[in-house]
């Protein structure tokens, strides 16, 4: 009896034991490394701990989305760097996607010129190392920009100079009410759309949702301006003289050239890969699908929008996720051109000032890991949403 019982359990055990051993081995390796590191650091007189995160950082950062100056802590400096990394990645992903889709579709264009230009763009930009492109945009292209006193002016409200792009600053009163109204508008649009879908599916009634949605989005926030005391004024950048030949702009918001160069380089580079994914996705949709769509009288744009793209997306999304992850990680090259991302601020300056290499490098690696996994999770969710739904 006992033997039999053992045998039954053995089946489960056969699955479990190797896994348990692997976990144990992994754990012991980690523990071994950790203790060893501790002993070695002890011998070399290096202490380990995260207390430094609360200490005063005492260095300033060019550009920060939250309030920061040197009197804040290293922890705060970390946050500044993290937000800057997220900012440049988000901008990069946004433009890379738009450009990637346009270029990808252009490559399949019947127009010889458009197709060739798109092809050349892809071949050139994906075959030059990214760091060189970053240097190109920063040191070569932006260097051609004029000094502030000769800044390129856009209707005198915005100026492009070598020191950055100065744009008007938005000054809101009762911004919270405005924000709430925008959220309310989106909720309203969601309900309008689901109502319209129901109407179409049940009664075949077409409701012009695009126009209704747009009107809602404009109308509801407009009401807050007219009746709820929301107002918006602009603070324009003005040329300011610092010395006989040194000028800058005061007021307004400065978009630093480091951010422009990095975002440009990242999106131009990544767009080429996304373009190839888009092209592959579109070519991957069976020819019969297009012919069938054409036979029921859809025009070219409708075929692309209603028939080809929804199917192509299933092919495009997974490899594009990889490109988003690459872009995020590539943003760490920012340090080369002084864009204050997490690597420059935290794994650079903060590491130097505190000398806490192991702590800071671990935190930085974990941060990138977390960022990448978040993007993966989101894209997997989106991929599932786009997958074929059996009805």
């Amino acid at each position, binding site marked *: 009896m006992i033997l039999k019982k053992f045998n039954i359990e053995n089946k489960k055990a056969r699955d479990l034991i190797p896994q348990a051993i692997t976990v144990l081995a992994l754990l012991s390796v980690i523990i071994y490394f950790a203790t060893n590191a501790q002993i070695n650091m002890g011998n070399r007189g290096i202490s380990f701990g995260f207390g430094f995160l609360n200490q005063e950082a*005492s260095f300033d950062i060019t550009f920060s989305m939250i309030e920061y100056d040197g009197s804040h802590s290293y922890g705060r400096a970390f946050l500044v760097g993290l937000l800057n990394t997220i900012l440049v990645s988000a901008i990069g992903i946004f433009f890379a996607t738009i450009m990637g889709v346009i270029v990808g579709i252009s490559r399949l264009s019947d127009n010889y010129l458009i197709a060739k230009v798109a092809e050349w763009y892809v071949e050139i930009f994906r075959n030059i190392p990214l760091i060189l492109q970053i240097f190109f945009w920063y040191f070569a292209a932006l260097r051609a920009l004029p000094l502030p006193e000769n800044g390129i002016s856009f209707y005198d409200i915005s100026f492009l100079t070598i020191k950055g792009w100065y744009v008007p600053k938005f000054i809101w009163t009762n911004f919270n009410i405005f924000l709430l109204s925008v959220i309310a508008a989106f909720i309203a649009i969601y309900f309008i759309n689901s109502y319209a879908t129901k109407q179409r599916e049940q009664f075949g009634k077409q409701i012009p949702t695009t126009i209704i949605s747009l009107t809602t989005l404009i109308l509801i926030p407009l009401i807050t301006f007219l009746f709820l005391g929301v107002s918006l004024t602009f603070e324009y950048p003005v040329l300011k003289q610092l010395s006989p030949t040194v000028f800058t702009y005061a007021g307004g918001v400065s978009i630093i050239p480091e951010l422009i160069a990095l975002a440009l380089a990242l999106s131009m580079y990544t767009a080429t890969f996304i373009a190839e994914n888009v092209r592959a996705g579109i070519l991957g949709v069976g020819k019969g699908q297009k012919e069938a769509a054409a036979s029921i009288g859809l025009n070219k744009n409708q075929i692309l929008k209603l028939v080809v793209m929804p199917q192509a997306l299933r092919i495009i999304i997974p490899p594009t996720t990889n490109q988003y992850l690459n872009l995020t990680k590539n943003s760490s090259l920012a340090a080369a051109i002084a864009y204050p991302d997490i690597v420059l601020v935290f794994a650079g*300056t903060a590491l130097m000032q505190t000398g806490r290499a192991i702590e800071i490098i671990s935190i930085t690696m974990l941060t990138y890991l977390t960022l990448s996994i978040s993007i993966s999770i989101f894209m997997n969710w989106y991929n599932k949403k786009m997958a074929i739904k059996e009805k």
Partner: protein
Amino acid sequence: MIKSIKTWILIGFASLLLVACGQGGGGAGSKKSKTLDNTKKAGFVKCGVSQGLPGFSNADASGNWSGIDVDVCRAVAAAVLGDADKVKYTPLSAKERFTALTSGEIDVLARNTTWTLSRDADIGLTFVGVNFYDGQGFMVRKNSGINSVNDFKNGISACTNTGTTTELNMRDFFNSKNISYEPIAFEKADEVVQAYDAGRCDTYTTDKSGLAAQRTKMSNPDEHKVLPETISKEPLGPVVRQGDAVWEDIVRWSLNTMIEAEEYGVNSSNASSLKDSENPAIKRLVGSEGELGAAFGLDNDWSLRIIEQVGNYGESYKKHIADTGILPNRGPNQLWTKGGILYVPPAR
């Protein structure tokens, strides 16, 4: 890309070394020096230098390093191995330098490094002396009309290197003057120079010696000038790992020997002829009196070799800093007997 990857690999590798290697490290307190033994076994001194700072540590077209920081490593090699050329140089960024030293990638760090309390006490390093007294200054364009730091106004943009004390001094300075400024910090000095040269920033701030050296790299050096004010104390000196007292002493006294030799007028050409000098201090320097080398396990000619092969501090300064036009005037880096602040304990 190369640069970034190198940094990461180095830091990663250094961290790994700390993580993975056995329980080596320096046995503090004993007379034996692990670093000395390893250096003798390897046959060269592992020296960390800058990535190119004229006058301090700079490689020529064929890869030969020279400069007053390089001379510290050469002095150590002459003392320990008998040949000043037996040095392996590792160029390091400001960010990499301390990790490279604590992990054992290098044994002496001679890379225009400022001696501060937190660096000395906190991160497993020991500063052994000062081979250059520097101070932070500002460089501006000559035509800017800025003649003093008092001419700086709100909104000025300042370029500098990341990971250095200059970043901190800059903040202290602008805060004390109540001036809002835009700090732009690059990883490499070359990029700072390029950005400043292009007009991205109005002023470039770093150690004054560095400013003088970098000015020579600008597209038109005559268009720039260094402001007279010095905003900080920057005593630059060689650094060793904490925990190997003997090695620490060797590096400290190799540097001190060079300065002491200048004080007593001993130089590379007359050193060997001074063996029978009447002055006992000179005789100790050239090894004909006393047994000073034995204190750290070296022979008695260790200091003679330093003077003969590397020269005294004055020769080194003249060759690398003065004659190259970087800082012809020695300023505080003059002997205490001649109005400077170079003053080393007696070698006896």
